[in-house]
């Protein structure tokens, strides 16, 4: 409807615009014609003036012929013709006035020219007589007649000037009386009858000639031309004013039309924008639903598998179950990938900018691939770190980790044997900006140039054929690329077929302003002296750079002898001594003993080796080592070893042994609210391993009932449930009880959702599918006597 209204208004405006345009054209032409008329009227005025003057000059015999007068008259007539064509209406009066003038002129000229001739004839006769009289050739009688004639002529001349009636009568009488005498004048060439005729002609026409002359002198034509000229001027002014107004109107109409079109375009854009937003909202909702729907059964699959693994003794079944678990986890990974990708696509993924420990990110990556490494012994994973990189940098550790994991797993996937090296270094570009670069280099199958070009596209793999050897959704690198871009970074690849591939991601290096308390601990290592004894030059340099990074003074030695020399020759007091186990001729233990003997003071000995602790020689002599580091080790592990030997020793031990014994919480009572039976079963069994008292509820209503009856130390609350959902139940519980921690069990892992849970009073969440370890962490956080209060106080 709106659209048609707009269209209608626009068409109306355009019609108006067209009308104004044509009207402007007309006015333009009118202005032109009026200006022409004005010029013409000026010419006419001049011409009428000339015409009157020329005619008058003919009357007084200035020029010998009348061609000029005739031409002036013709010119005036032509001008009038033009004027008549331009202004047929207003010209009528002027044309008739000029015609009247013409009529007068015609008659005047015919009379006045003839009168001139008559006067000349009479004058020539008079002259002749006068000559004769002067020569005294006239007899007395003739002389008398001549005198009478002269008297008469004087009367006639007087009459011409003063047309007196009595004079006229007297002349007429004289003519009659003296006619017989005059006709006797034979001395002149011209007969008296001729002179008499001319005299009578003059007498007859003098009055008329004077009237016509008066008319000729009349300025009425000039006046009416002037009047017309003024009228033209006024009309022209009016038209010009109208023209101006219309020009302004046309311009405003033009702008209005343009504005309207622009407005409509804007509205259309807004509308389409809204549609896009709606569509993306729908997509997001669909994703949330789908994620929930898939995660819920996956939780069951994973949980049950894990439970079965614990109960099962048959190794074959265990192998099957392990594979099943691996497959299920892969599925979850793929699911996460797709969700991540969708989130990035819809711009929902938020990148954090927090201060984080880059070494811990690398440690996580390393830990993740530890097991993988063991099963695929042909590939070795190395980590290298540039000493120039500060320990704490600003960024998003989770997403950075994700990128590295993706790249490493990709590298491992395509590498049959050889090495995968993850290295981090920092550099400064031309414009002075700092960057840190993470490189993942493998010795795998490599790619062609063409393949390199498309690997960052979604759902595309280097090997596009259906018979491809390696599986995957093809999302991994696309997600990496998107994430890197979101983090203002750049990703690039270089590769050679059968030689290997090198992925490189580069981010701006931002050093956070505030350091965490952990950073403070590093101060204790600063300026401390360390001796590194290793025969392998690369290993030595790696450890050296790590220590230098920690701002320690480093001394190196390649064997026992040089180590002893370094120790004795210098005045340095070594606080730490890091020893390798394997030397060509001796073991690390031998060197440690020698050094220990030489030492005047107590130093911390750290043993590093690729062997596991069990494989090494064990005995009381081994106590000389304060710490044990398994190669490869990260900076963090080194730091931990240097700082706090005992605690880390424990952790390392745990890692070696596999799953640690679960802590138990025998006095704690936990409420589990979960509607789906299989999930309830999984969670129940997982929780029972912690030695808890457990109460089960099928929905929110039951949960509230239980909470009313007794106190719980912890509540696990599913969100989506029939009868009453987790949100409603939480709100109800929070009305009376604000202290009991409530943990959401949900497949909804979108950030907004989780924020919503916290808002209504929940204390944490566990995403489905979850594992026993995750549960353990939550239990430890909320049920341990020493930490629970602390957390709740936060």
């Amino acid at each position: 409807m709106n659209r048609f209204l707009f269209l209608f208004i626009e068409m109306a405006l355009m019609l108006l615009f067209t009308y104004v345009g044509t009207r402007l054209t007309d006015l333009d032409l009118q202005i032109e014609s009026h200006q022409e008329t004005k010029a013409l009227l000026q010419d006419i005025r001049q011409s009428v003036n000339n015409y009157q003057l020329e005619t008058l000059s003919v009357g007084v015999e200035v020029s010998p012929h009348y061609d000029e007068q005739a031409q002036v008259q013709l010119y005036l007539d032509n001008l009038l013709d033009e004027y008549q064509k331009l202004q047929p209406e207003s010209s009528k009066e002027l044309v008739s006035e000029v015609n009247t003038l013409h009529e007068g002129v015609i008659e005047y000229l015919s009379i006045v020219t003839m009168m001139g001739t008559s006067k000349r004839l009479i004058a020539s006769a008079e002259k002749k007589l006068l000559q004769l009289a002067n020569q005294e050739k006239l007899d007395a009688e003739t002389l008398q007649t001549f005198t009478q004639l002269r008297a008469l002529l004087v009367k006639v001349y007087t009459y011409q000037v003063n047309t007196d009636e009595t004079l006229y009568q007297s002349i007429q009488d004289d003519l009659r009386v003296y006619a017989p005498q005059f006709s006797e004048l034979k001395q002149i060439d011209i007969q008296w009858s001729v002179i008499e005729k001319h005299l009578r002609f003059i007498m007859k026409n003098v009055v008329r000639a004077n009237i016509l002359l008066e008319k000729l002198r009349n300025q009425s034509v000039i006046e009416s031309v002037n009047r017309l000229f003024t009228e033209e001027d006024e009309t022209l002014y009016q038209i010009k004013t109208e023209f101006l107004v219309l020009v302004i109107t046309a311009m405003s109409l033009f702008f209005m039309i343009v504005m309207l079109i622009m407005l409509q375009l804007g509205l259309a854009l807004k509308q389409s924008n809204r549609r896009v937003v709606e569509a993306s909202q729908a997509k997001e909702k669909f994703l949330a639903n789908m994620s929930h729907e898939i995660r819920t059964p996956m939780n069951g699959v994973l949980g049950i598998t894990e439970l079965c693994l614990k109960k099962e003794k048959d190794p074959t079944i265990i192998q099957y179950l392990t594979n099943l678990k691996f497959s299920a986890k892969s599925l979850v990974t793929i699911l996460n990938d797709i969700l991540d990708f969708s989130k990035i696509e819809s711009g929902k993924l938020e990148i954090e900018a927090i201060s984080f420990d880059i070494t811990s990110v690398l440690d996580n990556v390393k830990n993740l691939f530890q097991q993988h490494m063991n099963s695929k012994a042909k590939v070795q994973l190395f980590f290298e770190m540039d000493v120039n990189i500060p320990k704490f940098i600003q960024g998003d550790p989770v997403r950075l980790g994700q990128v590295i994991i993706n790249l490493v797993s990709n590298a491992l996937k395509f590498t049959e044997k050889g090495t995968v090296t993850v290295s981090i270094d920092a550099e400064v570009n031309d414009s002075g900006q700092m960057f840190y670069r993470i490189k993942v280099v493998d010795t795998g199958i490599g790619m062609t140039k063409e393949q390199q070009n498309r690997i960052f596209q979604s759902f595309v793999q280097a090997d596009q054929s259906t018979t491809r050897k390696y599986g995957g959704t093809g999302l991994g690198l696309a997600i990496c690329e998107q994430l890197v871009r979101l983090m203002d970074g750049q990703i690039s690849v270089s590769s050679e077929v059968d030689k290997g591939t090198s992925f490189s991601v580069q981010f701006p290096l931002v050093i956070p302003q505030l350091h965490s308390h952990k950073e403070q601990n590093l101060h204790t290592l600063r300026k401390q002296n360390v001796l590194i004894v290793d025969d392998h030059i690369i290993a030595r340099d790696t450890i050296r750079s790590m220590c230098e990074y920690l701002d320690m003074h480093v001394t190196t030695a390649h064997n026992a002898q040089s180590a002893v020399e370094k120790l004795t020759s210098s005045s340095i007091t070594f606080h730490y001594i890091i020893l390798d186990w394997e030397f060509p001729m001796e073991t690390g233990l031998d060197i440690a003993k020698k050094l220990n003997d030489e030492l005047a003071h107590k130093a911390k000995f750290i043993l590093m080796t690729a062997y596991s602790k069990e494989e090494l020689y064990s005995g009381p002599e081994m106590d000389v080592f304060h710490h044990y580091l398994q190669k490869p080790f990260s900076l963090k592990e080194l730091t931990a070893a240097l700082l706090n030997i005992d605690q880390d020793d424990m952790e390392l031990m745990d890692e070696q042994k596999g799953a640690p014994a679960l802590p138990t919480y025998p006095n704690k009572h936990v409420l589990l609210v979960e509607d789906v039976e299989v999930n309830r079963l999984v969670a129940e069994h997982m929780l029972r391993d912690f030695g808890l008292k457990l109460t089960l509820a099928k929905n929110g209503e039951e949960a509230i009932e239980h909470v009313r009856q007794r106190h719980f130390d912890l509540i696990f609350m599913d969100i989506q449930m029939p009868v009453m959902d987790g949100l409603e139940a939480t709100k109800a519980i929070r009305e009376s009880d604000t202290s009991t921690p409530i943990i959401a069990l949900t497949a909804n892992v979108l950030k907004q959702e989780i924020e919503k849970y916290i808002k209504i009073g929940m204390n944490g969440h566990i995403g489905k599918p979850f594992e026993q370890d995750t549960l353990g962490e939550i239990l430890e956080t909320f049920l341990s006597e020493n930490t629970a209060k602390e957390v709740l106080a936060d």
Partner: protein
Amino acid sequence: MTLKDFVFLCISFVACIVFIIGYHLHKNKTIQHEEVFSPTQYTFQTVEGPIQPLPKELVVDKKWARLGEALFHSTLLSKENDISCASCHFVNEGGDDGLAISIGHQNQSGTRNSPTVLNAVFNFRQFWDGRAASLAEQMDGPIHNPVEMATSWQEVIEKLNKDSYYRSAFYKLSPEGINQKNMKRALVTYLESLITPDAAFDRYLLGDQTALNEQQKRGWEKFQSFGCITCHQGVNIGGNFYQKLGRVDLVPEKLLNDKGLQEFTKQENHAFLFKVPSLRNVAKTAPYFHNGTVKELQEAIRIMGRSQLGMELADQDVADIEALLHSFSGELMSQAL
């Protein structure tokens, strides 16, 4: 709004502007046709005295003049394709037809003698009563007169358009083709070329004392002293103003049937006013006066002397003046075309 709407609006808007521009061009008629025409130009020589010689040089647009000549001789200009301009105006024989009253459509006759077309361009007005201000205006007369060509411009244009010669000839000169304006332009250009310079009298005026014989010189003296010169002056020896026939005295009865300008203007004061006729080639344009009732030049001189000047001219005077009038005849400028 869809893209379709937007495109539609834009096209409409452009259409509006194009319409306005088109309207403007149409109204303004700024599209000038390429037309080749140069107006006729004369080179006048001026002398002391009332009579001026005819120009001996002229520049005329020959293409238009030739087309005008063809039209002048074309009988297509009359209703029954039997009369042309040349039927009554023999350009090589004084520019008239020698008849008292010409014969027109269906052998009908009018009331006036056909005046000469030679030097007509120098007459200040056309027709005996000068009712047409220009040659172009004059042409409307014979074309429409029921006793002359008895047709109309429209009819003539239609006939000419069927004629391949005239069609191509007109279109060559003007993209407008055959219309009244172009026909008049052609005919006027032709008439403008019809001048008869180099008369004996003109040579005399320009200083050749031998150009006139003794009698003619006497005639010239009398022409002036009697007062003939009052009206017959200027380049055309007349033809530049009106004068009343019988100004001073009576005129013969046979000349009184026509009241001259009064017939046209109905003004009482215009009775017997006629345009003073040119005396150029007067010896070749008998019979004389507006109705052609005077066959002899001598008679015409006597009538003029009596009616206009009140003089009864002696035989010797008439003979002298007649001799002078012969010196007013010139040769048609053949090199003009």
